[in-house]
């Protein structure tokens, strides 16, 4: 045995170690650059918007005067839309994931469906907006309502929820299912009592991230024709409404400089909402993390 020439190994050592350090720093740089972009964004928003953040800002409707403009209609509208999106997308998404993982036979048809779900996740949101406009707003006559927008957003995030839920269901070890079947449990009992409890942290984490995307999306709402100037709070699921990102979009378009600051304040509220939702996701993940 003389395959390893220790002299050669030693000679190459410096080069190998340099490469090692270079790559470490390269990746560190990539991380810092991404963070820097976020920090700059946050800095701009806070310096510009913080001055306009007040209780009045949360309680007022939008206005021609920057100092009187507020986001109450958008905030309530967005939360009301979320109240439609959450049950619809969770029920459909988790249901489809369970069907695909636990019931469907693995054959060409399911592979094809699977592929298309992944593709759907990549379809631009504006396309979902057009779909929502055609089907929910016009064909089903829902108008520019919370229901129509909520269903459109549900379709938009459905593929993401399905994929996340499928992964969570798949990561439940087969040995747990075997244990349950081995005691005479039916498929449904096994899913309900073993698979779902073990998969729920993963399902919720993925779903909350998808829901926060639904809150931030603007394009589908623009296409549906959600109005901006709304001087009332929604009074039901078929009520017209406006949403946070719509207001921000509207203010940012206006010529007066002050409205840029109002937009920044709106973004701050939206960001706080998103950070709140994401921390719930992190909390759930840490609290219910199972070891198998």
């Amino acid at each position: 045995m003389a395959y390893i020439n220790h002299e050669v190994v030693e000679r190459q050592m410096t080069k190998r170690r340099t490469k090692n350090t270079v790559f470490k720093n390269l990746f560190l740089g990539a991380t810092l650059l991404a963070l820097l972009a976020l920090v700059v964004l946050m800095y701009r928003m806070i310096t510009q918007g913080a001055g306009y953040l007040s209780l009045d800002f949360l309680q007022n409707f939008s206005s021609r005067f920057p100092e009187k403009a507020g986001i109450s209609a958008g905030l309530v509208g967005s939360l009301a839309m979320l109240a439609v999106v959450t049950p619809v997308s969770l029920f459909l998404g988790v249901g489809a994931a369970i069907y695909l993982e636990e019931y469907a036979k693995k054959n060409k048809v399911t592979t094809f469906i699977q592929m298309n779900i992944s593709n759907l996740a990549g379809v631009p949101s504006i396309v979902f907006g057009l779909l929502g406009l055609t089907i929910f707003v016009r064909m089903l006559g829902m108008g520019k309502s919370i229901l129509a927008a909520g269903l459109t957003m549900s379709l938009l995030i459905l593929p993401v929820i399905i994929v996340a839920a499928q992964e969570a269901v798949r990561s439940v070890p087969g040995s747990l299912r075997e244990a349950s079947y081995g005691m005479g449990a039916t498929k449904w009992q096994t899913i309900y009592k073993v698979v779902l409890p073990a998969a729920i942290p993963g399902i919720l984490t993925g779903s909350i991230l998808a829901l926060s995307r639904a809150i931030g999306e603007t394009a589908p709402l623009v296409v549906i024709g959600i109005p901006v100037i709304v001087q009332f709070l929604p009074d039901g699921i078929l009520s017209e409404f406006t949403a946070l990102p719509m207001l921000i979009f509207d203010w940012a378009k206006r010529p007066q400089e002050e409205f840029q600051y109002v937009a920044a304040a709106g973004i701050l509220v939206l960001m706080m909402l998103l950070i709140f939702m994401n921390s719930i996701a992190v909390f759930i993940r840490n609290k219910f993390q199972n070891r198998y």
Partner: protein
Amino acid sequence: MVQAIVREEQQTKQEMKVLQNQPRENVYETNNLNLWYGDKHALKDINLNIQENNVTAIIGPSGCGKSTYLKTLNRMVELVPSVRTTGEINYRQRNILDKGYSVEELRTKVGMVFQKPNPFPKSIYDNIAYGPRIHGIKNKKVLDQIVEQSLRGAAIWDEVKDRLHDNAYGLSGGQQQRICIARCLAIEPDVILMDEPTSALDPISTLKVEELVQELKENYSIIIVTHNMQQAARISDKTAFFLNGEVIEFDATDKIFSNPSDKRTEDYVSGRFG
């Protein structure tokens, strides 16, 4: 508890038979069983009769079909897609391979302990109560009794009685396996199938499980797959030797290990291959 009463009756019948020196009844009669995984012929013309209140060991080299045969006895093998079987397996005189035989009913009578301990990520109590609960028992007092009796039956009550509501994952591997055995006892089975139950355990835990098997055979019929020949020799009454999907020899364990009639069995048990 009707099942318990039936069991007692069975036991008395059993005792009378022993007194009268009658042969034990067969729990399983396998006739010309063939099984394919896709194109692979995994079990070939298996004919085996398994007696009640015995420990029957199944030995053989890896890939010989011993685990497949065990999983056919409670039809767990059907979890693998593309499995096809012919022939019949009569459990207490009824063919379990019949379309009409409900697997849920079968698995309530035939419990299984797996190779790797697989407790649920729940408390010890909920693990044991899982089986009774899925079969519709809700009464807290009854569940408490089942949990205690099952844990006692698996000789682990004293170790866990003060921490019944702790997660079962906090236990050692050997304890987890006995929890799994207790969980299996909680459905009050007639037969217990064990698929290499000690292969993931340390020697001391293995010893405990082996002692437990000796105690359990008073009340249950046990079929155990093992790759450990000493284990088969120590704990079983009868041994079947599988090779390439066929039963080469099936006889009293003493005979298999001291005076086998087939050359291949002799080679295997004396450690010449496998």
